[in-house]
């Protein structure tokens, strides 16, 4: 019973109307590309969606329309209904908003309601549409907003991200959000480490299949990679490419052999993709593909075991 409850997580998506909540949700979970979001209309009341993540975790997303009348309703009549049993509150601020003072006030009220009803919930504040701020001053503008909002956290556990649907910052924020919800992350990471060493890879990254959010990664190279933001970048690159391919057929595997490295992306389990990066000249393509095959069986069993534990069916094969 507690298992079941533990794996259905209520996630509130709040913030002023037009701040970009539905846009982010559509890109991360419904395969929209950024420019498709221009067609989205304002959300009326609340749109509920149940997103299966990694098969054994269900995100219960409440995308709360942000027009003033709705917000008032959430804070008054629906207060308990909305703010009870929340695992995560994602609060979105539009960087272009002309009434930041008012936005911050409504934010405080939501935090207060959350603290009363779900004291253990985590809060993620996304200062959004950062693409509209010129590159050189982004850091400073973000810092200013954060400074003001930090004082209104009401003692809750709050993390801040600057985001935009037009670049990889979206994936960085959302990967952090789901990380706090994945129940068996340490086990997964331990297995991934073993695999990395067994196949002598430089780096291995595990992605969730539909969102392409990074679940876990292991680096075992000798020369540090100069791109610390590469995880969200790869999510963004591959997700966009998957989207592009889907016009023809879905993409199943990718191989790249370049002068000083090789990279392989393949379906790992029904719910994951894996990226394996090998230093140049270490292994033949066939060997890497065979290693991924072994890992596929192993991680597949792991996933299957968890599904049986949960009492659910789910015997889908990787479609390749």
């Amino acid at each position, binding site marked *: 019973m507690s298992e079941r409850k533990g794996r259905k997580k209520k996630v509130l998506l709040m913030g002023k109307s037009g701040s970009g909540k539905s846009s982010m949700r559509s890109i991360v979970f419904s395969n929209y590309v950024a420019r498709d979001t221009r067609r989205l209309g304002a959300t009326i009341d609340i749109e509920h969606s149940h997103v299966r993540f990694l098969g054994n975790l269900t995100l219960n997303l409440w995308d709360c329309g942000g027009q003033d009348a709705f917000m008032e309703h959430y804070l008054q009549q629906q207060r308990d209904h909305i703010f009870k049993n929340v695992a995560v509150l994602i609060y979105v601020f539009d960087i272009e908003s002309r009434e930041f003072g008012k936005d911050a006030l409504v934010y405080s009220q939501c935090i207060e309601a959350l603290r009363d009803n779900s004291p253990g919930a985590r809060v993620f504040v996304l200062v959004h549409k950062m693409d509209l701020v010129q590159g050189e001053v982004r850091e400073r503008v973000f810092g200013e907003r954060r400074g003001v909002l930090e004082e209104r956290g009401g003692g809750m556990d709050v993390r801040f991200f600057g985001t935009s649907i037009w670049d990889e910052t979206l994936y960085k924020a959302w990967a952090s959000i789901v990380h706090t919800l994945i129940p068996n992350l340490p086990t997964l990471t331990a297995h991934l480490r073993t695999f990395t060493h067994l196949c002598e890879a430089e780096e291995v990254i595990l992605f969730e299949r539909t969102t392409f959010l990074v679940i876990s990664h292991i680096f075992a190279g000798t020369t540090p990679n100069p791109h610390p933001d590469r995880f969200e970048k790869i999510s963004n690159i591959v997700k966009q490419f998957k989207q592009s391919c889907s016009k023809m057929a879905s993409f199943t595997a990718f191989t790249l052999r370049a*002068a000083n490295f090789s990279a392989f992306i393949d379906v790992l389990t029904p719910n994951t993709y894996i990226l394996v990066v090998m230093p140049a000249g270490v292994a033949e393509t066939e060997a890497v593909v065979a290693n991924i095959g072994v890992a596929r069986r192993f991680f597949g069993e792991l996933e299957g075991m968890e599904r049986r534990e949960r009492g659910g069916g789910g015997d889908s094969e990787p479609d390749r």
Partner: protein
Amino acid sequence: MIPSSASSSAAVISRSRKETSSSTFIASILGEDGKGMWPLRLSGKSSISSVVFHKLPPTDTLFLESTTRILKDPIHSFMDFQVWETPGQIDYLDPQFDVDAIFADAGALIWVIDAQDDYLDSLNRLHETLVAICPAYPTVNIEVFIHKVDGLSDDYKLDTQRDVIQRTQDELTDNGLDFINVSYHLTSIFDHSIFEAFSKVIQKLIPQLGTLENLLNALCANSGIEKAFLFDVLSKIYIATDSSPVDVQSYEICSDFIDVIVDVGEIYGFERKPPAEEGEGVEGGEPAGAGSEAELEEEQEPEAMSLIRLQNGMVLYLREINKYLALICLMRKENIEKQGLVEYNIQVFQEALGRVFALQR
């Protein structure tokens, strides 16, 4: 955001006709509004050249400053050419302005019209320019970009295109210039259309286009390839394709494939210290061998290759051809199983290509 007066502008791509340096292209983007009379700016000229030739993310064009002088942007690629971009403020019909300096070597004039704005002024300005320039420089290709069509409905796009074509052809007829061939392209920096349009503009300026097409046809026929594109990697312009019809979807996927290769290459292509220095126990005697192999590889600069499998049994196969060009083939997976044959045919293609470009140098 865009002032109502802002609506259009022009660009020029030109190819040098000097026999001695026939591999030089000059491409110019001309700013279109002159001296208060033609306050037509912000049509997107700088955005186009930044996005296509300098990989600027489209959303960052918001911060581009207005161009105030002629910018000559040399592009070193499979062929050298220049993009000239002229600012909105210059009236290049002004007798003092050195028209010949721009158009004598020009291969193409690209005229950029802002389709999200009232474009009549820009169109009048285009017509004046055509009447003034075309008789003197009949070999310059005229390319009209009906730009910023993102956010316009399909109907509106087509209506606009029809309107622009109608007005322009009428104007040319009235001036007895029917023989002038004008091409029209619907473009936006937010999708593939700008790259596709630029590809078509550049292809017309490649004298060996026919030969390239024939080579690609032969490659496809001999290797079971359904469609092949030869791309300039940095600009994502495709300089040739086999003569089977281009289907937009496969072109877009191939173009996106280039992005994936370039982006992943940027992330993981960094210089590694040779493993020998690190002295990891496991490899024992191996490091020295591995090191020298790496050196050897570096000397030969092996061409990058990439393979993408799709669920419908198709594969995308990319091969770096030289420093600038990459070949992308779309084929059934059965045909790539004979990878040796495909590799061999590509090598033959590569050598032939080398000869084609060597000839005209």
